[in-house]
């Protein structure tokens, strides 16, 4: 049946995207903590871990593109709206955060991880709003 084929394809792509995302985050953890806890600052192994992480990241990006292309019109619009909001909020919020740091209005240094979390949460909220809007 057509629906089964279409739905199956989306489910398959979502699963593949989840696997690539898991591989990327795992390789990032390895590249971050490996030098200190596993291979005792060995430069060769550290460089290799960073390269593996970058390759996994490229795989994840390509899989994400494939996943989005397999969605239907409305699902693509929901994704696009959420990504637009996340990008806008990320740029504006990120720059404000940097200014807070450079002008010493906050005591700690600006960390990229805060920005990544901020963008991710905004993207998830954007998706939820989109799903609710077109329910």
């Amino acid at each position, binding site marked *: *049946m*057509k*629906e089964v084929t279409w739905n199956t394809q989306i489910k398959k792509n979502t699963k593949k995207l989840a696997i690539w995302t898991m591989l990327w985050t795992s390789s990032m953890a390895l590249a971050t903590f490996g030098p200190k806890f596993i291979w005792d600052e060995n430069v060769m192994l550290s460089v290799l871990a960073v390269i593996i992480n970058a390759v996994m990241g490229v795989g994840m990006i390509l899989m994400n593109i494939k996943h989005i292309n397999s969605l*239907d*019109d*409305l*699902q693509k*619009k929901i994704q696009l709206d959420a990504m637009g909001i996340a990008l806008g909020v990320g740029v504006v919020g990120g720059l404000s955060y940097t200014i807070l740091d450079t002008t010493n209005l906050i005591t700690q240094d600006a960390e990229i991880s805060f920005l990544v979390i901020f963008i991710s949460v905004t993207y998830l909220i954007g998706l939820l709003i989109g799903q609710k809007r*077109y*329910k």
Partner: protein
Amino acid sequence: MKNRLKVLRAERDLTQANLANELNVSRQTINAIEKGKFDPSLPLAFKMSKLFQLPIEKIFENDEMK
């Protein structure tokens, strides 16, 4: 943009899920189009036109053209 999707679907005894199935889209998409919350892309409109064997302008009505 207004459309006659709900009527055309009912005339053919199709559920939203059936129609979504035929057009390879989600049921949510059919529902959003029927409620006028979302306008389909040209390829999807052509698919509908082919499925219902009607010209696009018999399915969709552009409010701005009135």
